[in-house]
């Protein structure tokens, strides 16, 4: 298979434009989705161990159906921030270990009250830093994965815009995983992949083409179940429209999952992840 260098370069640029689109600041962010989908959300802070990580937000809320029926849920998500100040405050959505441990605390709380869990994924990756390593970033992610696999309530995850590395997967092990159509979901951000594969982070466009980071790829291998359609050219032009569609999907998915006896649901979750990724 030979392709002309100019054509390859054009394909690479197009692949990276899709990554940039997924990172568009106007796309629905976690807090915006929470405001648009849920009522009575009360934010709960802190991991009770070290601190409060603002890259991860969470708390209990109601999900209201158009008929006015209210369903209790626990909502946890990664928040990237909207402007320079909030982005810095939220570390661009890259959680530290305390973010994952706060998430675990709220997951266990959801199980205690028997209320379904909804996870909103929006992170380029888990934070890479000295403090994060000292406090066990890998340990925090690994424990979150186990917590979700064994959680005795229905779990729905949504890849909003960017899901990168184990830092995203830690909130995306679920009975149903939804993804906004133009989101990306990758083993690592294209920059990191390029650094590992080509030893040059500058070749991120090449990595973006090779890795097929679009959430559709995750759908093909069964890691994501449903894509939420977006208007052209992307969710940033009509975020409220996308949020409304997402809310409809969440309602349908919870109706579906809450009707399944919990042992059956857990067995299906085990089977799903036993064969994850082919």
């Amino acid at each position: 298979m030979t392709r002309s260098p100019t054509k390859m370069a054009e394909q690479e640029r197009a692949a990276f434009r899709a990554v940039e689109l997924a990172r568009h600041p106007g796309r629905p962010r976690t807090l915006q989705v929470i405001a648009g989908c849920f009522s009575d959300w009360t934010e709960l802070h802190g991991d009770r161990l070290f601190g409060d990580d603002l890259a991860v937000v969470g708390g209990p809320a109601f999900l209201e159906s158009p008929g006015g029926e209210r369903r209790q849920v626990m909502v946890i998500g990664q928040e990237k921030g909207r402007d320079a100040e909030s982005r810095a405050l939220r570390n661009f959505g890259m959680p530290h270990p305390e973010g994952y441990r706060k998430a675990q605390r709220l997951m266990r709380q959801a199980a205690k009250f028997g209320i379904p869990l909804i996870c909103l994924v929006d992170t380029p990756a888990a934070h890479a830093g000295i403090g994060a390593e000292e406090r066990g970033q890998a340990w925090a992610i690994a424990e979150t994965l186990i917590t979700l696999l064994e959680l005795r309530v229905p779990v729905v995850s949504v890849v909003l815009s960017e899901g990168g590395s184990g830092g995203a997967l830690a909130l995306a092990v679920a009975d149903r995983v939804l993804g906004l159509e133009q989101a990306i979901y990758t083993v690592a951000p294209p920059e990191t992949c390029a650094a590992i594969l080509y030893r040059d982070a500058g070749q991120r466009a090449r990595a973006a083409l090779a890795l097929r980071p679009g959430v559709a790829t995750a759908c093909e291998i069964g890691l994501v179940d449903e894509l939420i359609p977006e208007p052209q050219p992307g969710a940033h032009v009509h975020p409220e429209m996308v949020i409304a569609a997402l809310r409809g999907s969440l309602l349908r998915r919870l109706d579906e999952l809450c009707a399944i006896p919990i042992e059956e649901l857990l067995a299906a979750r085990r089977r799903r992840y036993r064969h994850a990724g082919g």
Partner: protein
Amino acid sequence: MDALMDRRGGLPLPHRRFAPRLVPAPGPKPQPVAPTGTVACKGCNRRFVTERYERALRVCSLCGYHGVVPATLRATQLADRGSLHLADFSDVEDRDPLHFNDGVAYPKRIAEARAKTGLREAFMVARCLIGGNPIVIACMDFGFLGGSLGSAAGECFARACEMAVAENRSLVAVCTSGGARMQEGIAALAQMARCSQGVSGVAAAGLPYISILADPCFGGVTASFAVQSDVILAEPGARIGFAGGRVIEQATHDKLPDGFQTAEFLLAHGMVDQVVLRADLRDTVARLLGVYSR
């Protein structure tokens, strides 16, 4: 360091003389002409007669540096003599979901890794006894594409977990890996969940799981099954973490603390249960399982 010495009863720790290298030296190192039948320690460059080095389990008697051990040799070092029986996972298929090609097609890379290591995948799984305890042992091989975790390796580990449950054996995993196998993209990420599911099954069956972390152990392997065990043992000087030190330095421009991400550093931060000399691994595992499984 004092605290560490105290915890080990003030025993002399020969390996401590070895200061772990944090950043790989740039470019290929000038290799001195090797006398035949000898091997150089990667820590201090001292040459040893191969036979003697192997008898010392590839640990330098001078600086304590623990050299790389391929998977099959590792299992042989840990298992009771004559008890090792490799599991036949030859039906595990490798996948190339992205038709990945970075100059060399991914299937060709796998074929090369197989030829080089004699293994089918980055995981080698076997049944054995350790101190008389029935074990399923799953060893990673860093020589196989950097011990990276792809879907075939994930399937091997998941089967190892199921084998442990089905045969009521304890699970021992030796982990050394650069992380998820980038060439498989998102399918590689999914293996973290697949392997975690395996560990969850072993835990539900009430069976002990001991992980041994060897140099280096990073990324999606550390962030899943490597640290989901009941007991985490680490070899002296092993570098262990989520993100690599070089990545962190480049991203944050922070100066890394001394010994950052070494086994000893992680012990001091409460992340591993013990740092164990390679020569003591077998006895430590045997002693632990003796207590857990009776």
